[in-house]
């Protein structure tokens, strides 16, 4: 499975985290698992960067943290999207799509 993996481009980790949390609140481990699953194992979240990113987003007020009980009855820190976070996600997602389209156009040129 290693061959298919690609490194995350700079700045996309935040976007992926926000998008994942848009579905439901999650703890850190689950976020990385979810990203990996959804991307069919192509995207591997560098675990060393995940937590600093979470804390950074929390500081910016885009996500908020709350302690909850996990699936195995353990205490875990759940992150959820804030209203600011939702707005930011919308803007970032829009930007991302534009970029993808633009890059696609350039890559497809004859």
């Amino acid at each position, binding site marked *: 499975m290693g061959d298919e993996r690609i490194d995350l481009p700079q700045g996309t980790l935040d976007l992926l985290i926000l998008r994942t949390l848009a579905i439901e609140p999650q*703890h*850190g*481990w689950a976020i990385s*698992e979810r990203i990996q699953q959804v991307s069919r194992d192509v995207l591997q979240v560098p*675990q*060393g960067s995940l*937590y*600093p*990113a979470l*804390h*950074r987003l*929390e*500081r910016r007020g885009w996500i908020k943290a709350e*302690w909850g009980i*996990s699936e*195995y009855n*353990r*205490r*875990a*820190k759940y992150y959820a999207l804030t209203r600011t976070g939702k707005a930011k996600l919308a803007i970032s997602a829009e930007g991302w799509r534009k970029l993808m389209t633009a890059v696609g156009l350039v890559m497809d040129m004859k």
Partner: protein
Amino acid sequence: MLFDLWYRLRAIVRRRSVERDLDDELRFHIERQTQKYVSSGHPVAEAARLARLELGGLDQLKEQCRDARGVGLWEQAGQNLRLAFRSLRRRPGFSVVVVLTLALGIGANSAVFTAIRTILLQSLAFPDGHELVRLEQYEPRTASPPSAVATTRLEDWQRMSGTFQAISGYYPGDISETSGDVPERLAGAWVAPRFLQVWAIAPMLGRGFAPEEERFGGPRAVIVSERLWNRRFGSNTSIDGRRLRIGQDSVPIVGVMPESFQFPLREVDVWAPSPVDAPFAQDRRSTWFTAVGRVRPGITLTEAQADLDRVQAQLARAHPDTDARIGVRVTALKDVVVGDVGRSLWLLFGAVSVLLLIACTNIAALLLARTADRQQEISIRYSLGASRASIVAQLLTESLVLAVTGSIAGLAVAAGALRMLEVLGEGLPRVAELRLDWMLVAYSLGCAVGATMLFGLFPALRTASRRTSDALAARSRSVAPSTQRLQWLLVGLQVSLAVPLLFGAGLLLRSFDALGRVAPGFQPERVLTFRISGHWGETTDMKALQRRMYLTAEALQAVPGVEAAATALAAPGVPFEHQTEVRIVEGDSAPNQRILASTRVVSAGYFATMQIPMVTGNPCPQDAPTPTAVVNRRFAALYAAGSVPVGRHIQQVPANAFLGAARIVGVVGDAREEGLNRQPPPIVYWCHAAPVPAPLFLVRTRMEPMALASTIRRKLGELEPRRSVYEMAPLEERLSETFAENRLRTILLTFFAVTAVSLAAIGLYGTLSYFVHMRRREIGVRMALGAPRHEVAVSFVRHALKVSLIGCVAGLALAAVLGRGIAGMLYGVSPLDFMTFSGVLLLVLGAAVFASAWPASRAARVDPMDVLRME
């Protein structure tokens, strides 16, 4: 060691719940990840390892999370602070030495700084104190200091000048207040009109003098001090009908001045008007007012001076006889009050600044040694992922804690030092105004922060440079040669800074010693001095006044235990500084030669009482129909061309109303009348028992003089019950007072010098101890190879001595240059005194040996086996 540190770091980290949360969060992650691996078939241990590995360095990760959260600066600072306290507590010896060093440096510096600010820089404690000036008239032709001002002239200045708000004057006069059982002497001042206007301070009760009270023959009135008011009348607030009984008269009190008003002298309790229109005040040659003025806002000293010069030039044309040869001098009153204490204070300030510098150097050396000792700890923290900035911050925090603790202790030291200064420097100007204030606090904190930067930043940056830390991780127990050189340099620097202080103190001490061995030409031991109250009105009948003095002297001589008694205008050996030009009436030898001589006025019996030997002729006679005088040997040698001047007449130039042409009746030996530290000047002793109503009485006793004090008081009380006796003190005490400032600066400089040398010794000790500690392996190996123990010890001492010697030589060179600065304060010793030079050298080298003995002996006690086992 590594494990221990790891735990300690974690322990600190766990203190806060935020940190615990972070821990929990990451632990949860690792657990979940481990589970995942286990469920995909990995053995448990392998799964856990993989999970951890994926996450990377845990500490680094946490640090990044903290950074990401922007863990507040506050939190970081708090943590640094805790770490700092903990690490300082672990080395109490080091911490105490550093704090004490700083406390001494900052404390002494703050105290002297406060003294300078209060005494030299602050304006006087009067509204717009900078506008106040002292006005003096002087005789440009003699070296005589400026004198008091004649009443009429004072009024002319006031009337004709344009740059002054007011000019006034005063002269001290003691008052015998006779309403109680025993007459009480009150210190009083007679004041010219506009006196309160000059000071711009209003009475707290009542009013100032009314114009009619300032006129001759007008109603009498006095203003009293708050102190006297409270003593006499309690806290009574009604001034109506309150009176003082002065001599025969009952005089109404019209005003009370607040305690803060302390002029001309702190102890003045009564102010009374001196009428300027009195017949006796019209003589332009009778000078008695100490003149003060307040210039108009914005007028400079130079402008005021030019204005008065112009006025005086007009007066010279109007009164050519009396005013032609008079100059006017305007001086800021503050400079008059402060006098030349400034020189001493700046000297002391220089000294304490050097002390602070030594203190900082010392601490830099200690900190350098200590941080080098901690290289290992620091390199471990690096490998655990601490950032360079955080380590520098940590080390700086430690320095800051030391500096702040040191400056708090320093403030305590300063407060104590100021109190001591108040006690030791009782005679000094404005000492009572000394207060610890916010400026001092700011200054002290400034010192602390500066010191922290100075001694904290450097070792911190040095230690925290990764290169050093890598190198030391490899070679943990040895000293980088550059560090060694730097530390020895610091030690040498301290020595070279301490030496000039020590040298200066040595010179001052030797001066004092020389002063103690001076033969003054009179016998100051066993002489009691005092004054008996008198009134200026008595001077209208000089004959009667003199008769009173001689009657009193006779009565004193009848007291058992009294050998002789006399009066004098001023105490012998206390600078009077009244130089006048005189003329020998029959002298035609050198008509163009100006004869300048110190003036002393003494009664018959003065030379016997002071035991000044007669050379030829007779002492002052008691009853002479015409004025007489006695000159000293130096006067005769200088101005009488070797011939005996006895029988000739001498006269002041210009002629003085009170001391007319006087016949010289004798020549006496030279005495140091103008101060023990000055060569006897040419002196004319005018024979007069009472040039002022209350001259100084000098009584030679057979026993300790103060033992006779009460007997003499009783005797004088029987003789003249209405008069009070005051200022009673042994002559030696008066002489010693003239050296109060000298003594104070000697004591302080000696104290600073000793502190400086002690600090340098501590620095040497600390540095050497550190080297011995760091080089134990090398020492052990050398011993194992057969080096004798004493040789090892001696090599350390030798090195310490070498550095001290170099420092000493540099310091002495510095001292030789600086010595010129204090040349004016020395007596009987050259600023390049060889004895002092060698003494300082011996002392410093002795201190160096002493300080290095203990570390060196520890080096000698190193056990080679221990060291080898440690490898």
